[in-house]
């Protein structure tokens, strides 16, 4: 089923497309520490791809490589059929890759609306001169992008707080605003770094629903890191398992769950000395 190059149809009827991003033999070192050791993985269009593993396995480093924050010492990143040269994070953002952070990285001094509007920055290009006049080009662009931002705000049900400064919000809402900011960029790939960390069951359910809806409604490809196994198994189409910077499993949630290496990594294994 997964060997078809143009994609496949999932059990619940979603169309998964061809490979949109491929990481080939990525190795990332920090001084003497190898955070990622020779890992290859692919991401298909429209799928929800999970990366799991114990703490310190290199999951976040992997996400940082995808979003251009780290440049790997070895290996290639292929995006939309072309090899991606080493680039700055803002250039990666311009290519349509958005992300959220494990520790919320919102702009605390701004309102929710302004935060979501920063997600539109890659779509706004009016120069300094026209902006200083405001009337005309700048105002038209602002209004057009505001409409997109409002759609996202509507979608994530945060209309009531749109003029509230972010610093006054609760943790769960902040996570949702951060998702809204990433979505406002209308990314082709959305990277979520532990979107449900520190949430209670209800908030987790809400967030899961939003992730599924985003994938369903906008067809956004989603790569997520999550520790809650129940959530990962329910949401994702394919799962990569990492441990100590190495890939120890890759496949459907069902395959991964029954993989002996994965079970060993999570539950521990007796070593014969």
């Amino acid at each position: 089923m997964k060997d078809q190059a143009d994609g496949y149809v999932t059990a619940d009827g979603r169309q998964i497309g061809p490979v949109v991003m491929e990481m080939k033999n990525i190795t990332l070192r920090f001084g003497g520490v190898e955070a990622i050791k020779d890992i290859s993985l692919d991401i298909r269009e429209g799928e929800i791809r999970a990366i799991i593993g114990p703490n310190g396995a290199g999951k976040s480093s992997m996400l940082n490589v995808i979003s251009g924050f780290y440049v790997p010492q070895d290996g290639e990143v292929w995006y939309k059929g072309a090899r991606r040269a080493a680039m700055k994070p803002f250039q990666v953002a311009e290519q349509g890759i958005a992300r959220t952070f494990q520790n919320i990285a919102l702009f605390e001094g701004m309102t929710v609306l302004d935060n979501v509007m920063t997600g539109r920055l890659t779509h706004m290009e009016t120069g300094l001169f026209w902006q200083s006049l405001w009337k005309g080009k700048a105002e038209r662009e602002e209004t057009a992008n505001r409409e997109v931002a409002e759609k996202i705000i509507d979608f994530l049900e945060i209309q009531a707080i749109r003029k509230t400064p972010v610093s006054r919000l609760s943790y769960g809402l902040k996570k949702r605003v951060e998702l809204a900011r990433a979505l406002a960029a209308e990314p082709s790939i959305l990277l979520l770094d532990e979107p449900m960390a520190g949430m209670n069951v209800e908030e987790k359910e809400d967030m899961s629903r939003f992730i599924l809806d985003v994938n369903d409604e906008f067809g956004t490809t989603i790569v997520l890191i999550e520790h809650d196994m129940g959530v990962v198994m329910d949401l994702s189409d394919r799962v990569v398992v990492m441990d100590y910077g190495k890939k120890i499993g890759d496949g459907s949630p069902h395959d991964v769950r029954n993989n002996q290496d994965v079970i060993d990594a999570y539950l521990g294994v007796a070593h014969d000395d």
Partner: protein
Amino acid sequence: MLYRESGDFSSTYAEDSQTFPIKFDRYRYYFVLFVAIFVIPFMINDYWVNSLFLPFLIYAIAAIGLNILVGYCGQVSLGTGGFMAVGAYACYKLMTSFPDVSMLVHVLLSGLITAAVGVLFGLPSLRIKGFYLAVATLAAQFFLVWLFNRVPWFYNYSASGQISAPERTFLGINITGANTQAWATYLFCLMFVIFSAYVARNLTRGSVGRKWMAIRDMDIAAEIIGVNPLRAKLTAFAVSSFFIGISGALFFSIYLGAVEVGEVFGIQKSFLVLFMIIIGGLGSIFGSFAGAAFLVLLPVVLKIVGVDWLGWPTDIVAHLQLVIVGGLIIVFLIAEPHGLAQLWRVAKEKLRLWPFPH
């Protein structure tokens, strides 16, 4: 009762994002503008213009400029005095080289020249932040003052080393030199204040402003969502220096008339403008005005109260002023880091619900 948003409905996004969304606020703003343009010029004399209105207006422009850099983009700068000096000397060179050109052009060009210098000294901001950047801009401050002191070309080889403004006109009216009218200089400066506030407001509410604030609040996240940090910081330095350059040009040509660079544009000037935006409110255009008004008014009020009413010696009052400003800086930094603008905002929020706050 007047200050209500009930009944004010915005049906378009443009209406919703206007500067004063509440009707009462809007009319109050138009009223202030009307008084400033059509009433005050007929009521003032030389004393009021020189002790209050000109310094207030000119410092307001400088405060807006510095607020864009420090309050909106989060890049601390102690080079304000130096950049004002660039504006002043650029204006002087332009005035003496092209005597027939209107002052309007000279002042705007001085702003542009200062913007270029600001970008040059803003380049280190890509690599260094916070304290270290403040020290780098401090270097700019001392270097620029040294430059204008030591290179005679800048002061046209005059024997005193000072620069003094020759008589120049705008629309045929004398606004620099010895024979000026109070209302003319006032209106000329007011024009630049309105222009600066308008441009600053437009820039800070649009995408450029969001880029600046994103860099200020969390530069890593800003870069991840597509903000080019170098470009955002350099535009902030350019726009900020543009306004500071304009204020320096006006400070020299309209207000003082003659300038000795080390005395007028020294490090004290940098701190004065920084105090204005700290007391007024970081990241707020209104705060720039409030801070400038406060620090310009304070010595005048103290003089009237202390010297004229209570009969204290002048030097005690002058020292008292330093004590009060110093104390206020500490109070504001601890109790209300967002300054007078935040107090004003809280008052407005309370007023909105008054008299039924629950």
